[in-house]
């Protein structure tokens, strides 16, 4: 089975974010980046499926030069090769982003395309489903398990309120993987060594023949929300704060 897994690089989780001079995006200088966590689970799913059914796992990412880092990590964890669409994505809307990814996926004609459920930066949660539409593939989202059966696949989807459902579909297909699909692996020393010999194919939008189209959604401004601070903040060192909190819970809130 040939699998393409699309992954994204996002600012590290505990980043202190500042708005940039345009007022529309964040100041990117000095930020640390990491793989989008839901995508790390999509990669894990790709590697497990490859181990179980054989074939090839190809990591794909669109982003500036720094995004090569998450592709190298994917190669070290066991992806066979990688494709880097070297373009500045910024706050690009998910349709524009998916058009780039779709053009690259077409060059591979995989059996299965995997994505994470959503990105921790823009959080649209749409790239996978749009990608399926652009590629003309059947899809499923919030996927927790995948099994190959009779030339197609059977997946377990999570629904709301503790319900689940199996869904069958033909291949090729696209699956947006739910976080928690399987425990994430670490790269081994051997894996890191091997990754150095693996290929990262670099492409641009122009190479892929993808021209920018006028966006259907535009971003006015980005800002730090004014917090409706409800919490009574308890100051002091750890011991003092703990003592005062217990006092408040006993005599003010009366819950202890």
């Amino acid at each position, binding site marked *: 089975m040939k699998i393409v897994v699309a992954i994204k690089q996002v600012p590290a989780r505990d980043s202190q974010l500042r708005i940039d001079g345009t007022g529309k995006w964040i100041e990117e200088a000095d930020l640390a980046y990491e793989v989008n966590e839901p995508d790390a689970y999509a990669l894990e799913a790709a590697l497990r499926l490859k181990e179980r059914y054989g074939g090839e796992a190809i990591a794909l990412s669109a982003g500036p030069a720094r995004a090569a880092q998450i592709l190298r990590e994917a190669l070290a964890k066991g992806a066979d090769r990688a494709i880097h669409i070297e373009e500045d994505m910024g706050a690009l809307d998910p349709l524009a982003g998916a058009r780039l990814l779709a053009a690259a996926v077409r060059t591979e004609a995989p059996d299965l395309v995997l994505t994470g459920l959503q990105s921790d930066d823009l959080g649209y949660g749409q790239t996978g489903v749009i990608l399926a539409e652009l590629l003309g593939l*059947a899809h499923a*989202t*919030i996927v927790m398990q995948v099994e190959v059966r009779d030339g197609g696949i059977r997946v377990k989807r999570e629904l709301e309120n503790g319900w689940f459902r199996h869904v069958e579909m033909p291949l090729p297909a696209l699956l947006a993987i739910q976080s928690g699909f399987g425990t994430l692996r670490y790269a081994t020393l051997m894996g890191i060594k091997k990754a150095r010999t693996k290929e990262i194919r670099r492409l641009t939008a122009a190479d892929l023949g993808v021209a920018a189209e006028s966006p259907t959604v535009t971003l006015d401004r980005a800002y730090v929300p004014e917090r409706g601070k409800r*919490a009574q903040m*308890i100051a002091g060192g*750890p011991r003092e704060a*703990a003592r005062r*909190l217990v006092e408040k819970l006993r005599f003010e*809130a009366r819950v202890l």
Partner: protein
Amino acid sequence: MSVLAVLEQRPGPHGRPEWNRMSFETLAAASQIAAELGATASAAVAGRGIETLARELAGRRLRAVYAVEHDLLREYTADGYSAALRQLIERVAPRFVLFPHSYQVRDFLPKLAASMGRVAVSDAVSHRIDRGQVVLVRQLFQGKLYVDVRFAGDAPHFASLQAGAYRADRAEEGQAPVESFVPRLAPGDIRTRPLERFREGARDVGLAAAGIVVSVGRGIREAENIPLVEDLARALGAELAASRPICDAGWLPIARQVGSSGQTVAPKLYVAVGISGAIQHLVGMKESHTVVAINKDPNAPIFEVADYGIVGDLFEVVPELTAAIEKIK
């Protein structure tokens, strides 16, 4: 000019369709936006055997209620819903199409919008009207930043609304004609085959009934640090719970997960340790009587729903808190 609210139904206890309650929030938002724009609001619901549901809306102030009916819509599929709603939208030609940001909508709305060359503004939390244009507010970076977005290009414009962003009770009475809409669908249009829905056992660990819940999030960093919050839970006589990432990583069982994909709890005391407060978590605990949050980031959204907050290193604060509670016992 009109605003169309696409509502959601799902199989109820006896297989009969029932509303997803988020639908009424979407309906309220559609009515409100329509009124502000001097436009009319309509509603649509898709499925099979949904006449009764559609008729429940006949007493609302809506221009029309569309019952999108087809045998092939009996079970939800992204292919079926997307094709059927696209046909309705092409016929009704609304300017805005609003959806609840449910799991089901997340599964088909991006496809529907992309098939019409558009991007849906997903998970919007509010709106305002600026010079006759709708501006929607979304959260980025898990709620750390907000953005104002606008639609460019031609209608229809698509958006989905975060759970709880609009109040469902603002319904105006009126009379709405219920129209049946039968989309053209063929079995070959639907590529996925959904099987029976099921629940998984071993969910009950007494979380829902607990008087005190100590809940742990990503701030705990490693599985080896879990005993720190176990000690606190023991001192308080509390049940231990967690946010999604902790259960995803396998550090605590999934049955202890609080949030939109886990349990909903409402204890008299909820202590959130190292939980930033993503909306998915907040919906599972915001009805708690008293909420305490311990987090190193003073801007963490959890402090918006907390009653008492301590900004600090949980590895220092939690042992002190455990000790302070032991002292009063």
